[in-house]
């Protein structure tokens, strides 16, 4: 491990949810430390707890036990609104289903987190963000007028717009064809590298996982494997970034 500050520390993390069938233990004691700027993939079979782990890290779900410290802040004690502000300032999320605001244009979607943060230059920065993902010509289009790849690029621009320390991506290419998915991944890695952002992504794609610095495998709510990725050839790394 390098001696840089941890971007993320999870200690004894557990998550139990109520369901119609009774209590379900989703996460069963996870300990994890992630350094700033690391690119992490979380892999595992369906129902292993990947998305739940993401939600807890993003302050979208409260853990039942253990502590979550992100960017030096312990999330367990924060109120609902404090968690929202924390996300606004430190976390960007990219979803498989994009989750753009249907009634807002691409520009407005990207400006939204900046507006929420009270940034005066929200729209200028949003314009830059869309230019960075190659969508300068789609500023005034609504999500319904964009292709799936374009929507995900808007979602990427939105996630990176406030310059968060952490990006969480849940199957970001799951709804895209291979070629488009490849473009999105390239853009995402590029942005993360440029801004020094820690990147955590959930994926079923071994190829995508291999492009990360580290792969964490979950099974039945536990970390069963945590390995640093060794790359076969420099060209591949270059291609990934």
């Amino acid at each position: 491990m390098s001696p840089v500050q941890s971007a993320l520390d999870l200690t004894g993390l557990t998550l139990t949810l109520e369901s119609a069938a009774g209590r379900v233990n989703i996460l069963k004691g996870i300990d994890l430390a992630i350094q700033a700027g690391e690119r992490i993939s979380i892999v595992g079979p369906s129902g292993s707890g990947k998305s739940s782990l993401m939600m807890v890290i993003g302050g979208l779900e409260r853990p039942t036990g253990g502590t979550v410290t992100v960017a030096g802040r312990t999330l367990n004690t924060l109120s609902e609104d404090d968690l929202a502000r924390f996300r606004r300032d430190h976390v960007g999320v990219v979803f498989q289903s994009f989750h753009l605001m249907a009634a807002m244009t691409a520009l407005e979607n990207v400006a939204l987190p900046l507006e929420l943060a009270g940034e005066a230059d929200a729209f200028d920065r949003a314009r830059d963000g869309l230019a960075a993902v190659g969508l300068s010509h789609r500023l005034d289009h609504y999500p319904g007028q964009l292709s799936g790849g374009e929507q995900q690029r808007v979602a990427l621009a939105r996630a990176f717009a406030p310059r968060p320390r952490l990006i969480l991506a849940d199957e970001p290419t799951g709804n895209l064809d291979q070629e488009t998915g490849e473009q999105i991944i390239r853009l995402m890695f590029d942005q993360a590298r440029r801004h020094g952002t820690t990147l955590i992504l959930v994926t079923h794609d071994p190829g995508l996982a291999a492009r990360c610095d580290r792969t964490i495998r979950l099974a039945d709510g536990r970390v069963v494997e945590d390995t640093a990725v060794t790359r076969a050839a420099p060209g591949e790394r270059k291609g990934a970034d």
Partner: protein
Amino acid sequence: MITLTELKLAARLARRELRGGIRGFRIFLLCLALGVGAIAAVQSVAGGIQRSLTQDGRAILGGDASVRVLYREATAAQRQWLEGQGTVAVTADMRAMARKAADQPGAEADLGAAGLVELKAVDGRYPLYGRLTLTDGGSDVQARLAARGGVFGALVDDTLAARLSLKPGDRLTVGDATVEVRGIIDHEPDKAGSGSIALGPRLMISADALPATGLVRPGSLVNWSYQLRLPEGTDAAAWAKGVDKTFPDAGWRVRDFQNAAPQLTRFIDRLAQFLTLVGLTALLVGGVGVGNAVRSHMDASVHSIATLKCLGAPARLIFQVYLMQILALAGLGIAGGLVLGAVLPLAAGRALAGLLPITAEIGVYPGRLALAALFGLTTALVFSLWPLGQAQGVPAARLFREGSAGRRGRPPTWVLMALAWLAAVLGSLAVLTSVDQKLAAFFVIGAGATLLLFLGAGTGITRLARLLPRPRQPALRLALSNLHRPGNLSGMVVLSLGLGLTVLVAVALIEGNFRREVGESLPANAPSFFFVDIQPDQLDQFRQTVLAVPGAHDLETTPSLRGTIVRVEGKPAQEQVHDPDKKWVVNGDRGVTYQASAPAGDKVMAGAWWPADYSGPPKLAISKDIAQAFGIGPGAHMTLSVLGREIEAEVAVVRDLDFTTLGINFTLVMSPGVLEHAPQTHLATVRAPAGAEAALQRAVIQAFPNITAIRVKEALATVSTIIVNIGMAVRVVAAVTLVAGTLVLAGAIAAGHRRRVYDAVVLKVLGAVRATVLRTFLIEYGALGLITAVISGALGTLTAWAVLTKVMSMKWVFLPQTLVLTALLSTAITLALGLAATWRALSQPAAPLLREE
């Protein structure tokens, strides 16, 4: 602390969110517009009438102030005093019989149908204010009424002209006088000021013509009105109060122009209140639709809310964003309602013109429209806050996990407190803006309880359906499970239709009972004729004339005098009234009679009648109302002033009078030996078969021109028309409630359309024919409609019973056909809406849906 920046951001986001259009809010907008429109329309019409009453107060009263004396003229001294106060115009009003003069064509045939008229004799100064206009454009009252060639003129209203086929130049006989029609009245400025129900059309003559009629005799039922133009700068209200103090025992009714038609004002106030409350019911029913629309909108916005939260928006901002949207939409709906409420009265203005004695000043009344808007806004908020409060609790995790938002929690405590506060504001608004606050409070409690009851009924039906054994018949089994499955419409059908139907049932039963009473019960018991103003010396001949008509029977005559209650137990009567609601007993004259023994079937509440041969000190039989007004009973002493002579008598008996028989009833009956020689007239009632009524009237009018015959059927028809018109107004507003309920239901059914299409497709895939699917849905909707009808019928009946027996002290008759009609209406509405939705569902092709699923 909410900052302006935060609000601006919320407004910006709210505006963006609304770009998707307001399709999902059509029912929301319609419900609000309908409810607000109904209240605004009622308020606008009431405002128009009140403005007329205020603006034209002097014309309606006929002066700055007026003094009315019932049944006798002011004394010379009083008259002199009045003349000293300002310019005085004197009018005399009475009921009389008018018929075509004997030498006019058709006169003989008209005798049997000779008209009861409201005769008004005016002096040379009439009208002091306002203009009396005639259909020929003239307004020269005095010139038209003046004697020409020894014949005085007369003005008649169009009803009398039509009834007796009169045209200008024709001659009429009224009492002993013959007058010539010189014009048809188009507008009589002080008509609304008379205060009593007009049983006949207007006949106006000059005061100079009145003596010749022979109608004014001692004891005749004449209202004398002294209308005054006071000197410039006189405070009319203060003057009117002063008169009461100057002549406390004169029995005068003094009014000033600001209170020109108190009875009409009171009537309009009460009717407006009642209609506003019914309108508020429409708004409450619409509120259910508002709540549904907001809930659907919030459900559709779950992803947006979760995304906003994910991007860092705090719950407060989310609440503000969606509250602003609801406020904006509510504003739109309310604005639509206000336009509707301001425009509708213009259309209704013409219809009202014939029904009211004054012209309503239809216009825009900002205060009244603001009240309707306030009702709309509070209702919209009361019904929106719950789903709004729930929505802000949508977890951001919803974006990752389906079903997280399915668990609808309770809104936060502060939202619940705001909801309770707004509900209290709405209730208070209804109570505080009402003239009868007790009734309004009952309404608010009743409406709230009814809403809760229907909510509970919906839950009850769902639970009961779940508990019932599964029928073997598939259609029936499916229908039963539709009643309780998740997302069922049971509660919604009951709630949206129930309140409207309850109001309709209550209104229909109350009106039905009124109509029954006036149209059937009263006429069945009532005499055929009332004859008034029979002079003592005419009595014997009158009896012979009446009884000579074949079929005439049950002739009863009673002496009639007028008296004022001046003292009770030696103290001024005005100060002795215990019950403020019965202040009327000391306002002006009361009818007084005398008789030797109790009438047949008399209900004695306390004390006992004097013996038939009683000849001791004066004793009195008083009505229950008078006893309650003063809190007295047998043994108490009461002093009456009869034609200026004071008579102290001991109360011997308290009676419960039954006015529904329409027989002769006097609230004050004196023992014999006191009033026999006082100036008096006699009243008579007589029964006759319908076929003999015209002959009876003809015989009496020919022999006694001064005697007025009131045909009870006609009088009741007049009253009945008034009831029908009021009932119509109430039913129109109540129908708005049902329309709102139907809209709400249609919205709810439309919202469940996708589910219905899915069910229909699956059933078809499994081999169900259309008829089976249709039958399933028909059973479901039919059952819901019937259950709603039963609950509404029971609640509406209870309400009607309470209003009739407790508030109006009337007899209650259950009218089952009204309930059957309600049940049919309810079932028809639900079936029609359900059928329409099912038919659409059945027409959907299966393949696309199955591929999608």
